């Protein structure tokens, strides 16, 4: 039984999903931090 196609589908879903989510988070962080003055950007001021 050859399951390579299923393996490929499964792996791509996971890693593409991770990539998309990561990109979303990073971009969101960049946009938000641009809207704030530096003294507000301390994570736990």
């Amino acid at each position, binding site marked *: *039984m*050859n*399951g*390579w196609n*299923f*393996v490929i*589908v*499964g*792996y791509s*879903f*996971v*890693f593409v*999903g*991770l990539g998309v*989510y*990561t990109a979303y*988070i*990073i971009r*969101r*962080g*960049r946009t*938000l*931090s*641009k*809207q*704030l*003055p*530096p003294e*507000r*950007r*301390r*994570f*736990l001021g």
Partner: protein
Amino acid sequence: MTDTKLEIGHELSSGGLTTTGTGSKVTKVLGVAALVAIGLQLLFGLYYSGPEVVQGEAVRLFYVHVPSVLTAYLGFGITLVASIIYLRKGSQFWDLVAGSAAEIAVLFCAFTLFTGAVWGKPTWGVYWQWDPRLTSTTVMFVMYLGYLAVRRLDLEPRVRSRRAAVLGIVSFLNVIIVHYSVDWWRGLHQQATFGVDTKLDGLMLFSFFLGLVAFTVVFAWLLIHRFRVSWLEHQLRLARLDEALVERRAEGTIDGTTGAIS
């Protein structure tokens, strides 16, 4: 795993000033580690380890499927702990940690379900089987989607956070009950579970643990960034509030009254 948690706590609380974005020294190190780990995971999972006797190549899904679900549990566990602390102390920090962890955990939960279904086809011949684990994981997934929805409710921020915290606690306790109930339910029908009949050799086990390490590091890295995004959102809200306060005070003289602000 505890070490990672400690590190997260330390990193979250001492994170430095960044110019743009949510990165810092620690996240950079963690990010590189995550990338290396994922690279190794792919290498071992897809290349070095061989096919299994019964399942064939499909066994490779095991190396992402099970680490995903364990990472999801880790995330929901953090949500539970953070929710308890939030209800006790009422500090915004723990509320944001709880929300961030839950969101990432839901993502990993989705990975679990998808890989589970894709794995089911070659092994069982169907995408969906009323397998106890698959079923209870689905219920957990929907439950935490509800949790995330509550975090976006149109309520006063503080009210919303408190309600979400209660939910973060109850949901986790309920996951345990759901787990048992589904187990008993399917136990009556003697269904084959994942991993039964499967003999994992050393290289396979190594690939699996590699996947576990990789996903844990990825989770930690994501959690820090996600938390910081929430933190920035929170700060933005406070900054807007300051502006709103100035505007609000400016209204004070419009009224016909002669007086100046005392």
